[in-house]
């Protein structure tokens, strides 16, 4: 029962070898891509419900229209195009194999008789003598040259060049495959994440964009500083992060990054992507003595100690606690410190940034309040690994070279007949090409002129 199977295989092969399929797939890809630019992609469900209503939302979601370019059916179209392209190319290459590799026999002189681009002239020298004069020129102009003696005692020179240009279109097709393979490598073995690092802090884990998972990097990143510069117009001119990379606590690289100037280390690339401000860790605190009403201010950062005058004790600033809560209610970002009075137990003091008078509730001898928090920046970094990039870039180069060769290089063949004519020769030059035939007559004319001068 091999016959039906092979006929199915043949039908499949024939189907995939069809240029009509290529055109349908290209237009389908174009059409569905348009859809993806009209429907906002990867938004929150609520946004879509507001846009399309609940039924519309569920219908579109079932069709994967909210992440269209990663949907199974879009990727299937791309895969079909790739199979179509491979089958078509293999089919054509095997059909043209002799032509592509130059294993074709030297064509018969008669093949050039019908050529439109031709020139003829006479020369006093006999064919054999003339051949010696023109052959070197022919060999310079053409890559492959063959000489034959004709039945009438004349000579026939065949020359061809640009045969390799017939490979151009397959180079373009191969480049498309390289792009797809590169993309696949990137999505399978790479990652795409981000991390926000406040100035002065070090992180080693980033968050992945598509899954939201956390990933530990083989090195830690410290942001020494982040600066924004502005033009006089108020538009930003430069975002700069001063980064230090650390391996097991040891500094291995120190470099500034800018937009358009990322940093690469061990296959991982770090890009300047965004920035923002955070309450800083440096804070100006005021200490009000309940007894005398005197106010003492002090700038502190976590770890600093302050011996409050009037013997009111020692205050140690411990930390900034983001989104703190007090007895179960949220109070926002708050500093935490420890107050060690002259006598008695040390107490923990909570100083919410938003409520400066909060500490009065403690009813201590001294009221501590947050006067001013120095703002600090955090830098938003894009952290990627994409081992597919070299493959994709190779595809880019191949595609450009292939397109140029396909469209602007031609496979040209020339036939030069030197026939005995009186005591001398009658010379006929004719050329054919597989494309850009409009340029042939002038090429023939030029070559004929050069030949006559010999």
């Amino acid at each position: 029962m091999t016959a039906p199977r092979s006929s199915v295989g043949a039908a499949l092969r024939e189907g995939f070898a069809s240029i009509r399929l290529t055109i349908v797939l290209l237009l389908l890809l174009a059409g569905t891509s348009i859809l993806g630019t009209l429907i906002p992609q990867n938004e929150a469900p609520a946004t879509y419900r507001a846009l399309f209503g609940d039924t519309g939302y569920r219908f579109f979601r079932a069709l994967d229209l909210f992440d269209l370019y990663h949907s199974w059916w879009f990727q299937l179209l791309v895969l079909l195009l790739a199979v179509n392209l491979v089958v078509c190319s293999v089919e054509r290459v095997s059909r043209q194999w002799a032509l592509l590799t130059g294993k074709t026999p030297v064509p018969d002189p008669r093949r050039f008789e019908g050529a439109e681009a031709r020139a003829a002239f006479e020369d006093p020298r006999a064919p054999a003598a003339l051949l010696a004069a023109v052959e070197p020129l022919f060999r310079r102009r053409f890559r492959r040259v063959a000489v034959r003696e004709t039945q009438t005692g004349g000579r026939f020179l065949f020359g061809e060049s640009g045969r390799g240009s017939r490979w151009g279109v397959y180079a373009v097709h191969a480049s498309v495959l390289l792009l797809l393979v590169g993309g696949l490598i990137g999505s399978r073995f790479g990652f795409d994440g981000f991390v926000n690092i406040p100035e002065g802090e070090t992180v080693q884990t980033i968050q992945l964009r598509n899954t939201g998972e956390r990933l530990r990097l083989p090195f830690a990143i410290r942001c020494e500083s982040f600066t924004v510069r502005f033009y006089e117009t108020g538009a930003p001119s430069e975002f700069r992060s001063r980064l230090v990379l650390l391996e097991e606590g040891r500094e291995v690289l120190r470099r500034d990054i800018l937009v358009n100037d990322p940093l690469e280390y061990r296959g991982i690339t770090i890009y300047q992507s965004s920035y923002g401000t955070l309450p800083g860790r440096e804070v100006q605190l005021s200490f009000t003595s309940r007894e005398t009403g005197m106010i003492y201010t002090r700038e502190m950062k976590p770890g600093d100690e302050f011996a409050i005058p009037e013997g009111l004790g020692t205050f140690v600033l411990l930390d900034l606690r983001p989104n703190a809560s007090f007895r179960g209610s949220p109070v926002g970002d708050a500093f935490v410190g420890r107050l060690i009075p002259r006598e008695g137990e040390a107490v923990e003091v909570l100083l919410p940034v938003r409520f400066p008078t909060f500490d009065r509730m403690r009813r201590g001898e001294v009221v501590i309040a947050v006067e001013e928090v120095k703002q600090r920046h955090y830098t938003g970094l894009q952290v990627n690994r994409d081992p597919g990039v070299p493959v994709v870039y190779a595809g880019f180069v191949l595609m450009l070279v292939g397109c140029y060769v396909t469209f602007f290089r031609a496979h040209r063949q020339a036939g030069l007949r030197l026939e005995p004519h009186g005591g001398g020769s009658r010379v006929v030059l004719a050329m054919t090409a597989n494309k850009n035939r409009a340029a042939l007559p002038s090429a023939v004319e030029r070559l004929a002129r050069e030949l006559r001068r010999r």
Partner: protein
Amino acid sequence: MTSSILLSATTWVYGLSAFLYLAAWVFHRPGLEAPASWAAAVGLAANTAGFFLRWAESYWLGMGHAPLSNLYESLVFFAGMIVLVHLVVERRTGNRVIGAFSAPLAFLAIAYASLSPNISDKIQPLIPALKSNWLIAHVVTCFIGYAAFAVAFGVSLMYLLRTRAAAPGRLAGRLPEPELLEEWTHRLVVFGFLFLTAGIITGAVWANTAWGRYWGWDPKETWSLITWFVYATLLHARLVSGWRGRRIAVLSLVGFGAVLFTYFGVNLLPGLHSYQTTG
């Protein structure tokens, strides 16, 4: 700024050139064709001078960047490239009727830049995302491609008018021979396709250094790919399936529609190329 004056003068010279080309065709005054070509050439010279002067001016203002950074500058460059491509085609074909369809496109592009109240001709400093050596390579390749597609659009339109089923009227009858139009539609599309490919590739490499990905399905990227698909379809239909004539001309019009949407329409959609709209 002197460059602005020079570039608004260019607008009127292109307008004059378009008018002369159209008058020569419509009123059958072949004597106007040579002045039309000269006007186009003079306009291109002024356009080029304005472009480089603006570049110099941005240095004098302490910004120092190529004038390819916003809608005004890209339209001015686009207009110049259309005229350049058109003049080359005119020289190679020896036919000056083609100008009646391509010179107006150049005029519309630069007039939109000069006259639209929404487009500022002020030289602005570069935002960080645009500070890259890829800016020039990307914009120049894209707009050479777009300009070739624009002239191809004009030539295809002429082909469709020339080959209407009804016998061509006097106007359509004065258009170039269909074979010439068909041949040049193909040549221009091929040329544009090479540059569009280069434009997408330089854009991808740039995106990879700026945003950390060479492709992200941003609407502008997607639309450039849609344009690429349309012209790839045209080339395959012609070279492999042997399509000729009207069907190819229609695909060329559709392709230019995609070019226009990639250029202008995308600004209506949200995306990373949004600096195109401001100024």
